[in-house]
Each structure stands twice: as structure tokens, then as C-alpha cells.
């Protein structure tokens, strides 16, 4: 029976080429956008270079003060002092990677201005994160203690600043008129991982603000637990420590959270001290995706109704010879799935091309999107969504057709 359905599905597709084109275009275009968006999300959300230990990590990046009576609120990044003075005392934190926000400095190469984004980090930053060193190594506690002017630079900076020089270890890079000795070169990090990407990494002891005794500042950190099982304990211990923090003047509440990776992002986008914004962001993304899928689906529903009603004589004949409404619904859904899977295959081919073009154009610095099983899995789900939702209603409507009227319609 399925073979018969496939035969007729292909015949119908060939019969009305314009309708087929519109349907396939709608499906494949929508799927392409979805697949590229999924590849982008996957790039952000899945453990990626150099942050591979997410399962054992919690991320701290915001500090919030509140005056609940007056409704005042103050929100900022976190100070180095907070991490060093409070978080480092927690027993469940095995290691802590502290880094500052990116700051920009100017360097001049052959009279051309080069903007270098740099970050201050501690020594454990290089142990928690797994940067791949192309040459040299990271700075250690000794260089930090001595506040040495040493730098780890990215491959991109090496090329932009030093050109095709084979090795740059021991050479000096000048940014904002300060000379830093290069001691390591790391592979580039995608700009989407804004906490870890940078052109140059420096010891925090040469920064001006690390000594500020304040809870708010310009730093963030990754807290690494010994194992995945220890993460909830680490969170609990962190929360208890935050409760004991001294209240700043004019405020009656302090919020600071150690969140998993995605919740840390959503808290910044849509959350606040008391809510991580995860539900809000997921709901908005789901709603947007649903609406985005709904438009081509409605279009497909309309085309399908027209297509199916053209075949009312066939429906009448099938019913006369023993097809029940249920069987007909099944047939038309199978036909629609054939169409959507065809659109899906075209969509996948288009996605591969688009992703290749995006990577080639380097739209987001050092971001390399890829088609992987996660992306393919979600694409398959989207295909089934299209196939079922755009097929069920027309099929149901058609299956209710009166046989005599259906036969007369020819």
C-alpha cells in the first residue's frame, strides 16, 4: 500500500510543477534558516574550544544590589576582590578561572591602527580552560606574583601584528604604549564565546582595578567542581556564602549567582538577581520558532487543500472501493511527508552551502559553524512538524468529503 502512496505522491508532485516549486521552496527555505540558526545555537550552547568542562562548571558574572523598599537596583560585573576574598574560600571549588571583561587597546603596525582586545586572567584560567597553544605557554603564578608584562596572544593577533614570522616567543607587542613580552600563542576562539575570546591575555596583577575592595567590578569567573556530582553542592555553598556578604550602604539585598553556562547567558539577557531568565528566553525562542514555522505551514496547508480538492474524484473512487476516512488521512499524510522530506533534503543541501558561505565570510570572528547530528536531528523534527501539521488538516477535511459530491466534482 505504501508503494502505491509513494507512486501517487511523486505523480502529484510532477503534475503541478508550480505548486510543487512553491511548496518545496517554502519548506527548504524555512528549514535552511532553522538549520543555520540551530547550528549557531549549537555552537553557543555545546561545549566548545576552549571551554570543555561545562558539565563540572558554574559561571559567575553578575552582582546585583537591591533596595526593595525604594525599588533601587544596581547591577554590574563582579570584582576580582569578591572572587579572591570570598569565592576562593569555598571548599567545593576545585579551581577558579578568573578573567576580566575585554578592554580595547591600540597598537600600530606599519602606521596602521590595530585594535587589540585584551583580558586579564589568573593562573588557573589556563588550567580550567583548555586553550591550544601553537607555541610557548601560559603565564604561571610566578609571573603573576611579579606582575610581569607578559602576554599570551591569539593566532590572529600574531598574524596581524607580526606578519608571517615563524615564532614570536620573546618578541614584544606594544599596546597603548606598553610593551608586553609574548610568551604564548593560542588558537583563535570564536567571538560567540565572549567570555573566552580575546586578542591578548595578560596577568591580572598588571591591571589597575584588581585591588578595589568592592563587590562590583569588571571580572567574571568559572568555578570548577571536582566532579559533576559536586556541582549542586558547590552551588549550595556559593549561595550560602552570598547570604553572608556585607550589605552595601542604601541596599538591603545582594544577589550573585553561580549558574550553569546557558542560565548564565539568559540571566544577562532576560534575568535579574532572583530569576535566571531561562524560562523567559526559552519561551521567547520557542514562540519565535513556532511562529516562524507556522507561516510556511499555513501556506502549505492552503496549497495542500487546493491540491487535495483537485483530486476529489480520486477520493470518491477510493472511498467507493473501500477506503475509510482514516485510511485516506493516512494516505495524504504519507504523501505530505514525502513532499516535506524532499524539501528537507533540499534544505540540508542549502544549509551546508549557507554554512560554508558564512564560515568563509567570517561574519562573526573565528566562528566556525558546522552541520552535526544535533542540527540534523532538529531538522528532522522540523520536517516531521511540517509534514504532519500541514498535512493533517487538509487530509481530515478531504476525508470528510461526501463520496457522491466528490465523484461529481470531476
Amino acid at each position: 500500500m505504501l508503494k502505491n502512496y509513494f507512486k501517487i505522491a511523486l505523480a502529484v508532485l510532477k503534475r503541478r510543477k508550480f505548486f510543487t516549486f512553491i511548496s518545496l521552496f517554502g519548506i527548504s527555505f524555512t528549514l535552511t534558516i532553522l538549520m543555520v540558526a540551530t547550528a549557531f545555537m549549537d555552537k553557543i550552547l555545546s561545549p566548545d574550544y576552549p571551554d570543555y568542562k561545562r558539565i563540572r562548571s558554574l559561571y559567575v558574572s553578575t552582582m546585583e544590589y537591591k533596595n526593595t523598599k525604594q525599588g533601587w537596583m544596581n547591577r554590574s560585573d563582579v570584582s576580582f576582590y569578591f572572587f579572591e576574598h570570598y569565592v576562593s574560600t569555598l571548599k567545593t571549588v576545585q579551581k577558579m578561572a578568573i578573567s576580566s571583561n575585554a578592554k580595547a587597546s591600540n597598537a600600530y603596525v606599519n602606521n596602521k591602527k590595530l585594535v587589540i582586545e585584551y583580558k586579564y586572567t589568573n593562573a588557573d584560567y589556563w588550567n580550567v580552560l583548555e586553550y591550544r597553544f601553537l607555541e610557548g605557554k601560559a603565564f604561571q603564578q610566578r609571573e603573576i606574583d611579579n606582575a610581569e608584562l607578559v602576554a599570551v596572544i591569539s593566532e590572529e593577533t600574531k598574524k596581524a601584528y607580526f606578519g608571517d614570522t615563524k615564532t614570536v616567543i620573546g618578541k614584544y607587542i606594544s599596546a597603548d604604549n606598553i610593551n608586553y613580552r609574548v610568551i604564548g600563542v593560542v588558537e583563535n576562539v570564536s567571538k560567540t564565546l565572549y567570555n573566552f575570546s580575546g586578542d591578548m591575555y595578560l596577568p591580572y596583577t598588571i591591571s589597575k582595578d584588581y585591588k578595589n575592595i568592592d563587590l562590583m567590578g569588571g571580572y567574571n569567573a568559572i568555578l570548577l567542581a571536582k566532579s559533576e556530582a559536586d556541582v549542586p553542592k558547590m552551588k549550595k555553598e556559593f549561595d550560602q556564602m552570598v547570604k553572608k556578604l556585607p550589605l552595601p550602604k542604601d541596599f538591603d539585598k545582594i544577589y550573585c549567582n553561580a549558574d550553569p553556562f546557558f542560565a548564565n547567558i539568559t540571566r544577562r539577557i532576560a534575568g535579574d538577581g532572583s530569576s535566571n531568565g531561562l524560562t523567559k528566553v526559552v519561551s521567547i525562542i520557542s514562540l519565535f520558532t513556532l511562529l516562524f514555522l507556522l507561516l510556511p505551514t499555513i501556506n502549505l496547508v492552503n496549497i495542500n487543500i487546493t491540491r487535495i480538492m483537485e483530486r476529489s474524484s480520486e477520493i470518491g473512487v477510493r472511498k467507493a472501493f473501500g477506503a475509510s476516512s482514516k485510511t485516506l488521512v493516512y494516505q495524504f499524510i504519507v504523501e505530505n511527508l514525502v513532499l516535506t522530506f524532499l524539501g528537507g533534503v533540499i534544505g540540508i543541501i542549502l544549509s551546508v552551502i549557507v554554512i560554508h558561505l558564512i564560515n568563509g565570510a567570517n561574519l562573526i570572528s573565528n566562528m566556525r559553524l558546522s552541520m552535526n547530528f544535533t542540527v540534523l536531528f532538529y531538522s528532522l523534527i522540523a520536517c516531521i512538524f511540517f509534514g504532519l501539521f500541514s498535512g493533517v488538516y487538509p487530509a481530515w477535511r478531504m476525508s470528510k468529503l461526501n463520496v457522491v459530491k466528490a465523484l461529481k466534482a470531476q
Partner: protein
Amino acid sequence: MIHLQNIEKVYRTDTVETLAINGINLDIAKGEFLSIMGPSGCGKSTLLNIMGLLDEPSKGNIEIDEQDISRFSDQKLAKFRNQKLGFIFQSYHLINDLRVLDNVELPLLYRTSSAKERKVLATAALEKVGLSNRLKHFPTQLSGGQRQRVAIARAIVGNPQIILADEPTGNLDSAMGNEIMEILINLNKNEGTTIVMVTHDESMAHKTHRLVRLFDGSQVQ
């Protein structure tokens, strides 16, 4: 075989009520070849559709093969049609996207038969109507007479006890019409199939066992 009791069919719109069939009582015996005649719009096709369970009467009872079908569900009606009834239409109603063999196999799709069985039965049915050399053709590649023979093959492939034919020769010239009529008469004679045929053609009607005439929805003969 078919027992119609006080059948009425009324078509209603917002303003008009049309009585298409008015209290028809009819018994058709097993193996009988009956023809129904009457002027256009007298209710012949409506009556045939009611007998074929394609349309519901507004009033009255239908029994086919001693079964009261008035309480059948959609699923059960579909199964009943599939096993007991075969249809032949004036405009053939073949599926142009499918080859002749696939068209004839259609009623068997709704049974539990294998693809191989379906092919054997469909080929045999096409042989009976003299079209075994057209299995791979599409309906649009055939003449009117050949298409109607394919439609007959489709009607008989499931070996139904009853065939309902709505003006099967209506679209054909007299030679082709006679050929089709010959096939139906042989089917009735050799297989014992009960046939009910709606026709406008007196000469065709006279070749059947019994003639029923309708006028304005009522039986007049």
C-alpha cells in the same frame, strides 16, 4: 440480495426542499441483472448511490445480503463496500496518475493481500476484459472503451457479489457500448454477479433480466 424498503431522499437547501426519491420499495434477487431507466433528474443515480452505500437515504431501510447497514460505522461501511460491492461509472473515474494495473489493484489495497497477490488478481481481471496487453499504460493513453474496460476490471477484481453500474455505456459509441454490455452480461451469467445498471439506452436495458422505470423519484414500472 438487495432489499429497499420505503426509501426516500430529500435534498434540502436554505430555501428549497427537493424530493429526489419518493418511497421506493425494491427487491433484487441474487444473480439478477436489473436496469433502471427514466428521464434525467428522476433519481436513478441517487437510487443507485443509495444501493451502493455512497449516499444515505433520508428515510427507509436498506438490507444488503441480509444485513441492515443503517447502523454501520464509517469503518464498517468502507469494509462492506470493499468486499461486497463493485462500481462502474459513466466517466470511468480512473486515477490518471496511476498505471492501468495500479488502478485495477486499488480495491485490493484496502484488504490484507500481498503485492504479489494483488498483481496476480489484477492481471487476471484485466485478462477477463481483454486488456492484458495494457498493464503498463496510463488511462490517458487508452480509448474510452478501453478505459471503461479497465473500470470494469477494477470493479470485479475483488470478486464482489454486486456490481452497480451508472450509465456504463453512456460515454461510448454503440459498438463500444455493446462490447461493454457483453462483458457485463457474461459476468452475470458466468460468475452469478448481481448487477444493477442505470441506463438511458432502451436497447441495453432490454438485454437485462428486469427493467425498473422511475419518474419524479417514484417507481412507475
